[in-house]
């Protein structure tokens, strides 16, 4: 039977937002999946909950697109962990996505704010 693609199911997050947040997190330096999820959750005061069913497929997809690269390293607790680092293409992608995000937020804000005349 044809397997239905579930790669687009990203919980409640707006499409593309998770990719953007992952790239933004990696600007600070290489990190593994646990750190990325932690940074996004804590950085948003737990407003954003990272679905692992979305995070790992997203990391996989970003790596295939050449936006991030991965390598195996040793974590703080001496465990073998897969680290991700942002690639130059990822930085460019992040800039473009951030502009798009600002436009989107501005547009939605204009629509939902009551007219103050």
């Amino acid at each position: 039977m044809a397997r239905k693609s579930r790669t687009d199911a990203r919980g409640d997050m707006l499409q593309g937002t998770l990719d953007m947040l992952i790239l933004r997190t990696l600007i600070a330096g290489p990190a593994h999946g646990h750190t990325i999820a932690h940074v996004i959750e804590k950085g948003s005061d737990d407003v954003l909950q990272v679905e692992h069913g979305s995070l790992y497929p997203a990391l996989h997809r970003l790596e295939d697109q050449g936006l991030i690269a991965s390598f195996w390293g040793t974590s703080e607790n001496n465990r073998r962990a897969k680290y991700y680092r942002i690639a130059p293409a990822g930085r460019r992608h992040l800039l473009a996505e951030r502009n798009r995000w600002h436009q989107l937020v501005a547009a939605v804000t204009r629509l939902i704010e009551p007219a103050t005349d």
Partner: protein
Amino acid sequence: MAWRRFFQRAQRDDDLAAEIDHYVAAETDDNIARGMSADAARTAAVRKFGNRAAVREVVYGMNTINWADVLTQDLKYGLRQLRLRPGFALAAILSLALGIGANTAIFTLVDQLLLRLFHRQSVGNGLLYPASQVVEIVSESRISAAPATSPWPGTR
């Protein structure tokens, strides 16, 4: 570069499994640091990650060319069924072979007798007949059945 993932499916699945193991271990450590007992910390970490098989399946699916995967499955299944019932397999293969062979033989005959032979005769005659007359002429020549008095002089 991206197509390479289709040939590294097993390797990448192993990597992802190790990655998930690492996540659970790191989360367990965090939970212990928050004051949980070791058992409770691990249980909470596993629960927080959620369905690990589902995550692996999604990524596995991303590394799969679906139609090629299904085709391979079907081929393997078919071969297994044939080996399971050799008698049936033999009958099926024989009837296919006979069918294709008979078809080829008959077409070769029809091709030589009706198409090429007639083509040679009409070209030799320098005449071109419309398709509707071709059938008539062929049947006439059979009825006369006297090669010596061929309706097309000069051809043989």
